């Protein structure tokens, strides 16, 4: 909460680049992240959306230091993230934590819930008695009964396991959680429970979230601001209303129109943009605007110049498109 009063954002990413397989490989490097800049204020939820392979998870992993970026700078809580220094990272992880997608893979199957939750506490130097109390508190916080601390992960359902993963991330009172598709592996009727939990926790603890997801309905529900990624770049970033009500980038428009709406009365009455083709390979992205190969607005300039991510006269959000504008033209 304290960071919110400062002018500086809690997290600032400047021109982050991550290429894979550069080292002496014969194959071209995979350009997973290709220069993205973002800022996240304390207590805010920023959605990072895009389709598989767009680099959204890689971005999250670079921010927390699970991957070493190829270029760019990340400043967290006023300090630059030093990816090479383990001690600096360990210190940072007290304030920045990660929630994984798969609640089955993210918990050590041979450890009890108590052991899982107490690990970060003990490693940070907490005494045994205090740890006991804190684990119970954490379990209650995420809606689990503290008596179940001696159970193993496989004795819990998927939703409960994700709660354990969230509790572990919260153990040391972080300021920022990076949530990597936290509900997409869960049953439909369970997703809402976890989303509500995340919102409650944010209210209680003043957390900031970087919410990485492909499900736009979930993102529209939980996020204050949203950045749309395509092939390693951010193509549009703005508030929830800006992105969902007045999208300016053709890709955002196509993405939104592709989401099936669960109202049979709207069937056939909604304009649906069906994009042609598949996203290009990040090993060999097109010149200029990466989206031009599937875009109905593309012209010569799109092949020549990478469009800058900047505010346009007709809209307040930043858009990276030479032909940004509200959806009027019919896709070819």
């Amino acid at each position, binding site marked *: 909460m304290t960071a919110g009063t400062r002018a500086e954002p809690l997290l600032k990413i400047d021109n982050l680049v991550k290429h894979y397989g550069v080292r002496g490989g014969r194959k071209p490097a995979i350009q997973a992240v290709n220069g993205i800049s973002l800022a996240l204020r304390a207590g805010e939820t920023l959605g990072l959306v895009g389709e598989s392979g767009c680099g959204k998870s890689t971005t999250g992993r670079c921010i927390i230091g699970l991957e070493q970026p190829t270029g760019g700078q990340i400043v967290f809580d006023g300090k630059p993230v030093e990816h090479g220094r383990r001690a600096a990272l360990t210190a940072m992880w007290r304030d920045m934590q990660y929630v994984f997608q798969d609640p089955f893979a993210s918990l050590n199957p041979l450890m009890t819930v108590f052991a899982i939750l107490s690990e970060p506490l003990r490693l940070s130097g907490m005494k045994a008695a205090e740890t006991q109390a804190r684990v119970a508190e954490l379990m209650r916080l995420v809606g689990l009964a503290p008596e179940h601390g001696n159970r193993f992960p496989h004795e819990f359902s998927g939703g409960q396991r994700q709660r354990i993963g969230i509790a572990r991330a919260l153990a040391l009172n972080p300021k920022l959680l990076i949530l990597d598709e936290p509900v997409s592996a869960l049953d439909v009727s369970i997703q809402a429970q976890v989303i509500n939990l995340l919102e409650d926790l944010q209210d209680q603890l003043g957390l900031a979230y970087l919410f990485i997801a492909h499900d736009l309905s979930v993102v529209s*529900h939980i996020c204050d601001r949203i950045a749309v990624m395509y092939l390693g770049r951010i193509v549009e970033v703005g508030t929830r209303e800006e992105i969902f009500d007045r999208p300016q980038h053709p890709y955002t428009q196509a993405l939104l129109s592709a989401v099936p709406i669960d109202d049979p009365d709207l069937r056939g009455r909604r304009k649906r943009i069906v994009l042609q083709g598949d996203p290009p390979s990040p090993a060999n992205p097109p010149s200029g605007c990466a989206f031009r190969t599937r875009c109905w607005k593309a012209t010569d300039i799109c092949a020549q110049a990478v469009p800058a991510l900047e505010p346009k006269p007709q809209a307040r959000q930043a858009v990276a498109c030479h032909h940004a504008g509200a959806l009027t033209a019919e896709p070819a």
Partner: protein
Amino acid sequence: MTPANQGPPLLSVERLITEFRSAEGTVRAVDEVSYQIWPGETLAVVGESGSGKSVTAMSVLGLIPRPPGRIAGGRILFEGRDLLTVPPAEMRAIRGKAISMIFQDPMTSLNPVLTVGFQIAEAMLAHGDMGRAEAAERAVELLRTVGVPNAAERYQQFPHQFSGGMRQRALIAMAIANRPRLVIADEPTTALDVTIQAQVFEALRLAQAETQAAMVLITHDMGLVAELADRVVVMYGGRVVETTDVRTLFHAPRHPYTRGLLASLPRMHERSERLTPIPGAPPSLVNRPSGCAFHPRCAHSAGRLPCRTEVPAMREVEPAHWSACHYAEELQDSRERVEA
């Protein structure tokens, strides 16, 4: 709304019971499931993991691995014949010709060492009486039908040269190659990205328009149901809990589970402050609650005794609207879903 509830159904699953042996003893994955599908319609079978929706379909196709699986009761009538009594050789002929299927993961359903075109043509040659050249020509045409660009060129390529969405379209082409009367699609778009999903919807729609086949669409995605289905079967804990036409299901559901499910979905254009989740978790088959399997999570039961002790039967609560809730009548007018 429903296309043809008159006339005999194309497929009629009747009180089907499918069991699996496991370390925990025998579990009943499908428990007296019944549903019908009429020619040309799209029937969505909706449910969460463990609801039995896929196992039911595998039972229809005769693809339950035995052991550990076993069909312990019921009938599966396809065009009047009980598929459970059809000899295996004949069942293979039915599968792939009269009934075809589309699976969630297109990569495992295609042979990696054969060209895609060859595999589609092969499906026709195995079941039809056309020549090789004719089959090849029709395969290209089918690829074009489901929206594969440069179909003639794509015909020559191998599955690994296809992207996920393209592979799923090739599978759809293969599924309709023999003009089946029934297509069973098991989570056909779950593994795909949103913009690719949209392409595959289109392919499914085109395929169905082309063949007039009936389609069983197995999914957990209510959006997909709203976009594609004519009628819906909702499954929970191995049983059918509600079935009706798609509009009635979304606007006036008569089972607490359906209502809870619809209420819990985040919606892109309705920004209510808080979602309304269903508490608890779907039941495990080993440990199914007594009575109505949904009662521990039910907002409507309020702990009433019959919910805990009696398994509710499917009842026609309104014409063509069936619900397996003891108190379906109480759900008549109260629409839990908040309209924008």
